């Protein structure tokens, strides 16, 4: 789960919800699924919360340079 991208984690979470809602699992599997889902949900929201500031770079001849967003025209 650590190596998942945000997108993969979110997709996995959607799958877990769908499986749980189908309700065709044993109770043990359901509980395990639920725990997995909670971990995925935690992982998704933490990643969103962690990314507070967006990275902006200026591409100059294929090289990245810092981009000053507050520069006035």
């Amino acid at each position, binding site marked *: 789960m650590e190596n998942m*991208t*945000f*997108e993969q984690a*979110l997709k996995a*979470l*959607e799958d*877990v*919800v769908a499986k*749980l*809602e189908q*309700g065709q*699992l044993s*109770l043990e599997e*359901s*509980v395990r*699924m*639920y725990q997995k*889902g*909670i971990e995925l*949900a935690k992982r*998704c*929201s933490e*990643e*969103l919360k962690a*990314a*507070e*500031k*967006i*990275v*902006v*770079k*200026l*591409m*100059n001849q*294929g090289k*990245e340079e810092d*981009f000053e*967003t507050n*520069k006035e*025209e």
Partner: protein
Amino acid sequence: MERKPITVSALNRYLKYTFDHDKNLQSILLKAEISNFKRHSRGHLYMTLKDDASQISAVMFQSQANTLLFDPKEGSKVLVEGYVSIYETSGTYQVYIQKMTEDGIGDLFLQFEQLKKKLSEEGLFSEERKRKLPRFPKTIGVITSPTGAAVKDVIRVISSRYPLAKILVYPALVQGADAKDSIKKQIEQANRDQQCDVLIVGRGGGSIEDLWPFNEEVVARAIYSSKIPVISAVGHEVDFTIADFVADVRAATPSQAGELAVVDQKDLLRGVNLAITRMQAALLKELNMKRTLLERIQSAVVLSKPTRMLESKEVSLDRLLDKLTLLNPIKQIASEAQRLQTLQNKLGVAISHQLESVTQRFLRCADKLDMASPLNIMKKGYSLVKKDEEVITSVNKLHQGDTINVSFCDGSAVALVQQLRKDES
């Protein structure tokens, strides 16, 4: 001399009269640029006509506006025919437009239409070619002026919506003669760099000349050739450029391009929270179902009153035993044995009857035999004559001189035939 005041209405009526009777004001031909353009819901057009130094309000009523051959907008350079009059209620004067044409850009407009037709026929605008944007782009390329308002709008919107993304700004000229090649070069560069999942190509609002690079064929073809999906974001809502038609997605403004490029993290968090709620509901439902099932099982007779189960088993065991008793073969054997006995008895009786009658018959025969015995007869005086062991029953079988054997009941004698006498008959 005392001055007599007049009413405001009277003044405005007087001014209107004056304006309306001025030949110069009643038929004007004006060269101007449109700003503050508003299209009223009832179809009337309100705008300010201006040049570098001055401006005047103008209105074009719906009946005349319907005859327009172009789509007037902010910054349009126009030639206006009409008159000037006063609107009495507000005391404002304005140009009442009767005819309006585009000034000077007739050629550009023609170019635009021709290129649009050509590229459309080539299939550059076809809906099948439009690619879906990635839902969660990791890197977003923005091809625009690094100092313009557009790049700021895009960065502001994306960073507030989805800070997980990274933005790469590909600086490009977005107006002037060199702009088209600059934009094309950066689209190609971004494709070579292969860093971006989606590209935003555009600029903020401006005059039609300012936006013109986005109507150039080289830009259209660069967008078409891009392996990375492209969002166009040129000018304001009303501005449509060739780039908009070619792009995979058209954003009305750079800000909207940011909204189209990424999902809002608020929605994502809401989605994650909804997922948690749904999982909890599903698990709870599952638990309740299992609990109900457990309760039903627990309340089942066999578990709540285990002896009752045995009782019922006892009953059925009894029933089975009854059935078994009914089916017991001993009885049948007994009845069969009885039958056998009866048959045996009958047989015995029959045999003894038979024996008896046979014995009787035998005895009767023996008596008869006894009575018929030659010994008996010989006792009465008869003898048996044999010659050469042959019993002689006729005199004709004897000759004079034959030796015969005469048997009696108690012995025999050998005799010589001396004389034969045959009976006369």
